[in-house]
């Protein structure tokens, strides 16, 4: 529909450029210039003011450790991403290198941690048995009509193997790499992709990505970089997983509202769900902070509903020593533990073991109003006759959700998922508000963004902060690319 204007016609139509000029100028000044400046200053020791000394890649070495490992990892990752979905020989070879090579390299890097203390030679048989077991499990479970089973198996064997190795006393990075490697072998020795088992290729790619992830993790632990930065990425990973679960209530609520028979209540619930949104996020955050005080509403509710008793019992029986002193807890009877729980006032935001759980519970029941409204908009197009037909076929509530409702909102769910991961990676404002620039008790909540903020505005290492910012930027870029390649969103 748009009007084509050739180079010759520009002489008459040039004023049209003024429509876009102000926007472009603003963007150039306040987005591109700072970005370029960040790249430039990341190689300086800079305090944001008069001290500016060229130091080469020292800032990056300080945060990442030995550069050579990282360069190799990144190059291989890029080759893999660009070739992953092509049917050429080269693409297949890179997939092999990445899926099995990364965990292998990983194991070599880590081999100095093996054998761990206290592991007898006889016990070393167990990894071997696990290996065979996992592989057989894969072969046995993959058959023609198991489309999603493969992914499930992949995850279960991966987690199962890793926890087994960790229980044997292996270092956690080593255990996870070993597990990745073994499950990887299982996946790669399966038959080539066929019409009947379309998930196999996807599994191979996810195995390759898992290999890359393991490699990055072990490099982070062993290449000698900034410890706070990598523990921060650990916190981010936990938060991303938690946020995935937090998407569920919005979806379920939207589906339930949509399934209501009465039009009037449907409308009123919709209106009512907008009301809590008027509390500005900042105020909501501070009110939740008030809930989490040791004499606050959160502890009160936990005590009244008996959840506190369960937590105390669990804590005492597993000997974690989070709520109760370990030695004391071992001597207490169940009724004594319950008595202690009924008067308990744990400080959720002051205890290093409790901050992360508290931060995850934050904002229960996690229903995003905009999210619910968007999902509802997607669901509205379902005709009631579809439900009636499903009823006649005897489809249950869950079946209806999987076959009718989920496909309609899948696009939105995927977009939200990606935005959520990218948003969590950048998140540090909330942590700053709640815990200050120190990152909470023992710096437990020191996320990468906060580390950047702290380096620049508290400690005066602006150049180093730029380097951390660039690492974050790069990570987000890679995630976006992976998303574009592998998580296709059909419009």
């Amino acid at each position, binding site marked *: 529909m748009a009007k084509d204007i050739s180079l010759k016609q520009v002489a008459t139509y040039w004023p049209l450029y003024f*429509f876009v000029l102000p926007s472009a100028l603003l*963007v150039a000044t306040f987005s591109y210039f*700072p970005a370029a400046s960040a790249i430039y200053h990341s190689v300086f020791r800079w305090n944001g003011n008069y001290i500016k000394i060229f130091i080469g890649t020292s800032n990056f070495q300080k945060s990442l450790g030995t550069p050579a490992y990282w360069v190799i990892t990144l190059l291989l990752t890029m080759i893999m991403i660009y070739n992953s979905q092509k049917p050429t020989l080269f693409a297949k070879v890179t997939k092999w290198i990445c899926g099995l090579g990364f965990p292998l390299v990983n194991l070599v890097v880590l081999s100095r941690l093996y054998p761990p203390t206290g592991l007898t030679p006889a016990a070393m048989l167990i990894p071997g048995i696990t290996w065979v077991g996992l592989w057989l499990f894969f072969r046995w479970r993959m058959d023609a009509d198991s489309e999603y089973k493969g992914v499930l198996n992949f995850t279960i064997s991966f987690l199962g193997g890793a926890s087994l190795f960790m229980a044997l006393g292996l270092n956690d990075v080593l255990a996870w790499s070993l597990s990745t490697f073994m499950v990887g072998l299982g996946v790669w020795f399966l038959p080539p992709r066929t019409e009947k088992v379309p998930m196999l290729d996807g599994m191979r790619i996810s195995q390759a990505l898992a290999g890359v992830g393991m490699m990055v993790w072990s490099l982070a632990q062993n290449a000698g970089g900034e410890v706070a930065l990598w523990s921060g990425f650990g916190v981010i990973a936990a938060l991303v997983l938690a946020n995935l679960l937090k998407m569920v209530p919005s979806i379920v609520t939207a589906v339930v509202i949509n399934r209501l028979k009465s039009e009037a209540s449907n409308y009123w619930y919709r209106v009512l769900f907008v009301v809590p949104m008027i509390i*500005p996020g*900042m105020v*909501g955050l501070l009110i939740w902070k008030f809930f989490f005080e040791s004499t606050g509403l959160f502890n009160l509710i936990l005590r009244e509903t008996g959840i506190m008793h369960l937590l105390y019992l669990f804590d005492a029986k597993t000997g974690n020593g989070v709520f109760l002193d370990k030695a004391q807890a071992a001597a207490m009877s169940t009724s004594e533990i319950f008595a202690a729980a009924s008067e308990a006032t744990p400080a959720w935001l002051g205890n290093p073991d409790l901050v992360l759980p508290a931060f995850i519970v934050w904002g229960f029941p996690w229903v995003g109003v905009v999210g619910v409204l968007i999902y509802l908009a997607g669901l509205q197009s379902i005709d009631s006759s579809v439900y009636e037909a499903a009823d006649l076929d005897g489809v249950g509530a869950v079946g209806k959700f999987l076959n009718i409702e989920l496909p309609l909102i899948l696009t939105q769910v995927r977009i939200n998922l990606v935005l959520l991961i990218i948003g969590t990676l950048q998140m540090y404002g909330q942590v700053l508000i709640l815990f200050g620039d120190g990152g909470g008790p023992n710096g437990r909540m020191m996320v990468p963004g906060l580390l950047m903020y702290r380096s620049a505005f508290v400690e005066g290492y602006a150049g180093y902060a730029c380097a951390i910012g660039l690492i974050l930027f790069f990570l987000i870029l890679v995630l976006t690319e992976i998303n574009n390649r592998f998580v296709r969103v059909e419009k």
Partner: protein
Amino acid sequence: MSMRRKEILAEVWKHLFILFILSMAFLPLYVMLVISGKDGAQFVASPFKLTFPFHWSNYTQAWDMVSAYVFNTIFVCVTSVLLTFVLSLNAAFFFARYRMPGHKFLWYFFLVLMLMPGVANLVPLFMLLKNMSLLNTFYALMVVYVTGGQVVQIFILRNFIEEIPQDLFDAAEVDGASPFKQVYHIVLPMSGSVLSTLGILQFIGLWNDYILPLIVMRDDSMLTLAVGLVRMDGEYVKDWGALMAGFTIASIPMVLIFLFTMRLFVKGLAAGAVKG
């Protein structure tokens, strides 16, 4: 008969589920309103129940504390949202209706920006604002907000404008309307619900923004609401009644906006204004 009872039971369960979620979502609102009317003694005695007499004096006390912040924030947010509208409408019109030389380049110029996380820019941005001597002024907030806000809006508005029938523009052109007039007489009146949705979402984001005002603003009288509230919350001895009253006052502008634009907002969401 039993079939019918089963159906009714299923409906009741659905209502119960929604009411449970709703009650949890309303809990912060309830706590805020209830505590905002308590004096110290009432708060200690029963913090979470409605108590009488309801101390309205908390609100006058809170008003003295937060009114300056509220006006600062309203000024910054409203100006930024309006400026963003002007810029993004024009730019979106340019991209939707014309294929000028350099059109592709300009489009990708904005597209790449969507990938750039703000987090990496923060330090140099601060230095830039400092060198432009914009620190401790509202202009600093506005330019950054407008720059960040317009990108998403250009994307969504471009799609929206492309779907407006071509005949309208042709008719206007025959009558001698310049492109500028076309924007304000054709596009603007038609895009009410989309603009209000985009505007509200941007407004909510700006209302809660914390980091930028924190590093840019110096004087206490110039702070925005988010920074001011956190500062109030951080004081060691807290008067919870007045603090919650302050929170309530901070929410009222949002209530007003929703009252006036709610219909448009829900319609805009349903029409896919934010479907990305």
